[in-house]
Structures are given as C-alpha cells and as structure tokens.
C-alpha cells in the first residue's frame, strides 16, 4: 500500500503535465468520434433524434453517388500520393547536394504554394479554367481549339483536380526529403564515388533506401490528407460534372450541411474513419519497426 502511494506520488506530476493535453484530446478528438458513431445510428430532425439502427448505412450502400465518391477518393489518393512522392524524390535527389543557397531557393519556390490557402489556390485555378471567361479557355479559343472546358469533361476533370492538389502539396514533401537527404552520411557517397557508381545508382541504391522512413511518413500524411480532400472540389467543380468529382468528404459535407442528413453524414464519417484506420495501422507498424 505504501509502495503504491509512493509510485503515485512519484508520477503524479508527470500525469498532471500531460493532463491538459489529455483533456483536450478527449474533448476534441475522442468525444466527437464517439458522438459521430452514435449519430450514425440515429435519424436527426432538428431537435429530435430517432434511433434507426443501421438504416443510414443501408441508405449509403444503396446510393450510387456514394460508391462513385469512394472510387474518386481512391483515384485521388493513389495518383496524388504517387505523384507527390515521385516528384518530391526527383527534385530533392537532384538538388540536395548542391550549393546551399540554390537548395534554399528551390525549397522556397516549391513551398510558396503550401503557404497559400487552398481556397485561394482553387479560386485562382477556377478563374483560369472558367469555360466562359477564363484565361485558359480564352487562349484555347484564340488558338481555334473550339470549346475547351477541362472542368466540364469527366475525362479531364479528375486530372485537373489531381494536378491542382499535387501542385499545392508537393512543397511539403520536398522540404522533408531535402532535410532527410542532407542527413545521409557523406562517407557513403564518397565510398560509392570511389567504387565508380553512377549518380543514378547512388540515388536508387543509397539515397532512396536511406530516406525510407521519410517516404513512409510522407506517404501516410498524404494519404490521410487526400482522403479528406474537399476544398478544391467545393471551390473548383462543386462535385461535377454529374458527380464525376464527388469525394467521400464532399459527399459527407453535402449530406451534413446541404441536405441536413446528419445521420447519413455521420455514417460516411464512420466509414472514412475505419478506412483511414485500416490504411494507417500497417504503415505505422512498418514505421515503428524501422525505428
């Protein structure tokens, strides 16, 4: 009993220090998750809540737009993450060992779009791509390319959204990669040089394997970020044409705030939470294993 009291006394300060963070975590993260799970089982009408079991989930699985939103989200995640990791690796491996000022310039250039709000970026792209009076459409008409509407064609709208999101995100990945590559021990490169290895071989056999933890980290944060892709859809396409760019987050938003179907929206949220969890667990495990 005395010993237990002693352990408690020794640790109480530590617990008190983490308590504010723990309280905020419980209040703003855990409670909303639990409340979201609860709401997904209810039909919410203004001030009245009715328990409906899994009806909201059944409604979702009968809605073709929901399936379209899952497919679109997966397409965005796959392409944006591959593009981001691939391009960031390419740029970083090309510049990391160059003059420090040059590296800073490259880092700064790619990081500028990250600092600009996604809303602003989407609006600027919206102005450029507006089919009636946008700059790109105007240029296309001047070059006699007839009607040119990248946002109105379901084959081009996905690549446009992918490009806009990728262009905004890639700066963060480049910063992380350059920092990680600068930290790779120089003697490895010197040894490779002595052995007569080409730069391509150095990149693929020394650099990329040694920055693997960074690659895993960038992949995880990008997957989680792109799963929640919303702003660019809301500002640029409104989910159109004919739901061609609806993502799960946009579908959730529509149900929650436009159709006032809080139960259905919560069900989408729960499904997104489960998907994110399933995707993250193996990746996190791999990351911790590496460490």
């Amino acid at each position, binding site marked *: 009993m005395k010993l237990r009291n002693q352990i408690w006394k020794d640790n109480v300060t530590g617990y*008190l220090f983490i308590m504010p963070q723990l309280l905020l975590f419980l209040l703003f993260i855990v409670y909303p998750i639990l409340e979201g799970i609860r709401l997904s089982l209810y039909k919410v009408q203004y001030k009245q809540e009715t328990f409906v079991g899994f009806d909201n989930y059944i409604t979702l699985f009968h809605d073709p737009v929901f399936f379209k939103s899952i497919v679109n989200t997966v397409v965005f995640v796959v392409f944006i993450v591959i593009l981001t990791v691939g391009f960031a690796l390419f740029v970083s491996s090309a510049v990391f060992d160059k003059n420090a000022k040059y590296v800073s310039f490259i880092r700064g250039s790619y990081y500028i779009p990250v600092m600009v709000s996604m809303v602003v970026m989407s609006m600027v792209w919206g102005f450029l791509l507006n089919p009636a009076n946008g700059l790109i459409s105007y240029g296309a008409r001047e070059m006699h390319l007839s009607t040119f509407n990248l946002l109105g064609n379901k084959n081009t709208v996905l690549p446009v959204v992918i490009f806009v999101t990728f262009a905004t995100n890639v700066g963060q990945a480049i910063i992380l990669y350059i920092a990680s590559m600068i930290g790779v021990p120089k003697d490895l490169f010197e040894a490779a040089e002595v052995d007569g290895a080409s730069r391509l071989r150095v990149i693929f056999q020394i650099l990329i394997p040694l920055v693997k933890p960074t690659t895993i980290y960038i992949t995880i944060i990008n997957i989680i970020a792109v799963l929640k892709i919303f702003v660019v859809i809301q500002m640029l396409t409104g989910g159109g044409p004919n739901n061609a760019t609806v993502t799960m987050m946009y579908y959730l938003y529509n149900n929650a705030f436009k159709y006032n179907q809080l139960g259905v929206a919560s069900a989408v949220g729960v499904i997104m939470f489960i998907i994110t969890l399933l995707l993250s667990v193996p990746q996190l495990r791999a990351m911790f294993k590496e460490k």
Partner: protein
Amino acid sequence: MFNNCKRMSTIASFLLVIALLAGCSGKSADTDTSQNEGSKASGKKKVEIALWLTPQWKGVFDATEPDADYDSFFKYAADKFAKQYDKYDAKVNVQVVAGDQRDELLNVNLNGGTPPDIFFESVFAMGDYAHRGALVPLNDIVDDAAKQDIDQGYWDNVTYGKDKEIYFYPFSHNPGTLAYNADMFRAAGLEKEIGGENEIKTWTLDEYNNILKTLKEKLPKNTYPMGLYALNNQGDTWNLAYLRSFGSTFFDNNGSIALDDDKGVKAAAWMKSIYDAGYTNPGAESVSSNDANAMFQNQQLAISFTNSILFNNAKADMKAGKSQKFDIRLANIPSESGNPLAFTYVVGASVFKTGDAVKTEVAKDFVKFFSSDPELVKASKNSVPVRSSVVKELKDQYPLFAAYDANAPNMFSFTGNVPGYSELRQVLYPELQAMYVGEKTPEQAVKDYQSKGNAVIQKARENSVIK
C-alpha cells in the same frame, strides 16, 4: 528544495487546467455582464437579436444612396425600431450571408443550437425550415389591415398545413424574367424584336430561336446569345422554367414531379439543342448563374436571367459608373404555346425557434414593425411591393409595376409547395450537367431527375412536422 519544485509544478499544472476551462466559459460571462450594465443604464432589459439576410437590394430605399449596401435597410429599420420600442432595449445585429451558403450556415447553426432570430429571404428557399419545425408561426402578428393590404395570393405562398399557419411575413415580391442587351440586338439587326423600355417583351419560342440564331451569326467573337448554367443550384428557377417551355405542368396533383413525358423531354432536348448549337455560353455544366450574370454585365451575353432586384441593381451600377452602360430591357421566358412563363419570389421574414421566449417576442415585434411601417414598406419598391397601398402610391414613378402585374395570369408556382424543396434543388443540376456533357440523353436526364426528385419529396413528406 526538490519537493518545493515538485509542489510548484503541481500547482502550475492545476492553474493551467483551470485557466483553460475558464477560457472556454469566459465569453458567456462577459456577455451577461455587458447585458446587465446595458439594462441598468436604460432602465429596460437589453435584448440582442440576430437578423440574417441574403443580398437583396442596396441602400435603405435606393441603391444610389451614399454607402448603400445590402444591410443598409435593416440597420436603419433596427435603429428606428429601437427608438420607439418600449418593451425592451432592443439591439438588432444584421448580417448579410451569401445565397449559396445559406443552407450550410443555417444547418450548422440549427444543429449547434444557435440559429438567427430572424431570416429575411425568398420564401421558396426557406419553406423546408418550416417543414422541419424550426420556424415560429407568425399568425399572431398579422393583423386584418395587413391581410387586406396584401393580396391573398401572397398569403397563400406563406401559409402551411391544415392549421393555416403563416411562417413568413411577405414584404415584397421579385418576379423572374429574362434581361436582354438592346444595343447588342440592334447591332445584330434585331430592332423589331426590341420591346419598350417599360415593357416586358414577349417572344414566341420560334421568334426566340430565331433571335438566338441571328445573334450567334452576327455577334462578335467571345460574345454569346444567351446565358446557360448548371454548376450548382443557384438560379435554377430559370432552368425549371425552361423545362416547362413545351407545356409540362412539372408537378402532378399529388405534389410529385411529372416531368417525364413528351412535353418535359422536348423541353430538355430544346435546352440541349441550343447549347450544342453554340447559342449559349460554352461550358454550361461548369458555369454558375453568378458567372452568367457577370458576363451579361460585361456585355459578353446578349440575353440572361434576371429578377426585379438584380435588374434594378444592374441599372443602379450602370448609373453609378460601376459597370459598363448599355440599354438593358426585360423579356419574358418564352414557351411553345406563346404564353410567357412567369414566376415570382415572395420575399419576407421568418422567425426561428431559438428557445428564448424574450428574443422570439422581440424578433416578432421587429418583423411586424419593418413589414408594416408606412415609411419602411416603401423600400419594397426595389423589387415589387406586395402591399396594394404601396403599389398605388408609387405606380406612376415605377411603370414596370404595371408590366409585372400584367404577367400575373401566367404565373406558375415553381416549388409546387412540396416538402424537401432544398434537397430537391440539389438533384436537378447534376442531371443537367450529365445532359450537357453528353453523358445522358435528355430522355434519360428527365427520367432520372423525376425518380430521384420524387424519392426526395417522399422522404421529406414523411419527415415533415406540418400535416
């Protein structure tokens, strides 16, 4: 020494937690204090209410007033109300919200328990909130004088259910028509199709098709005959009107959508045909009504949608030198039968159930005040007054009132007074987008709209609190 440090850090941690908790509740405490102080000073209890509105007219009475803005009228009305109000020391906080953000804002605030006390908006966009039980009936503030001064047709628009509960106090109405650039018509040699300055010109559908064709041939590059849009639900009433242009009644007697017939399909096919022929701006599927309106004001479109407020604002902007001047005139939406398609938005205030009896009382009193004060109701001239007394007084100054009045027999109710209208609006534009991009035929788009729309109406009917 070590123990002292430990004790200090323990105390510091507690203080941090307490400070955080205090921070969360600090705001409400401050508000209470300021309210109490206010009450003491004036001798009356201070009550603050929130009024939200979507952009209507600028200025108190006229858009040409200095510093005219969308909230000018309500700020003036609130000031006048506070000076003569003897029950409480009332303060009205006026906030203008974007039309396309209205439902998002209201849903978030309703679910968070912080709805505005009053919302001033077109009735059609707010009907769902009455069905959801979020609004307070206003029967007790509508007196016989108001009932006599405002035509029964407007009261029908705002009265719901068997109990004849009035949820909106009609202030003005806002007829929807087309606007055209008479200068561009002249440049294309279409002088004979131009109506009078105070006329709402009626064309037959054949004449209209011919106008579009001529404009297409004669207009310079990068200008288009007509505005067409389907990016979102904004301005969708004109799309609904076009879908009636071959005689479809749109709704059946049971309040279900009945567009999927020969007339409805023909109308959808006509919309697609004018789009394909290049008679409209390109990319209708990704153009919004705001874009179309801006293009019309920039003289990139010869014909566009308008309503009386947009029309007056456009004229005021031209007069103030804020936009290019051109000869802007009105026309009806044409139909195959030759009878114009006319609709109007009744605009008025509704009071939300906030759960605070005092605020609800003040909100109702304020709504009654600005909707019936002889001076303030004259602001309804910015669209079209619903009060016969105001029309009578101002008709000589505003000759278009008579033109709008002449359209009354051709009016159709575009909402069909069906429940779930807000969600129903979200169903139409994706189908139009699919039709314009060629993903669906007009037949398929109409069919899918009808089945999806009827499912929305059915669900909303089951959930409605109004019987």
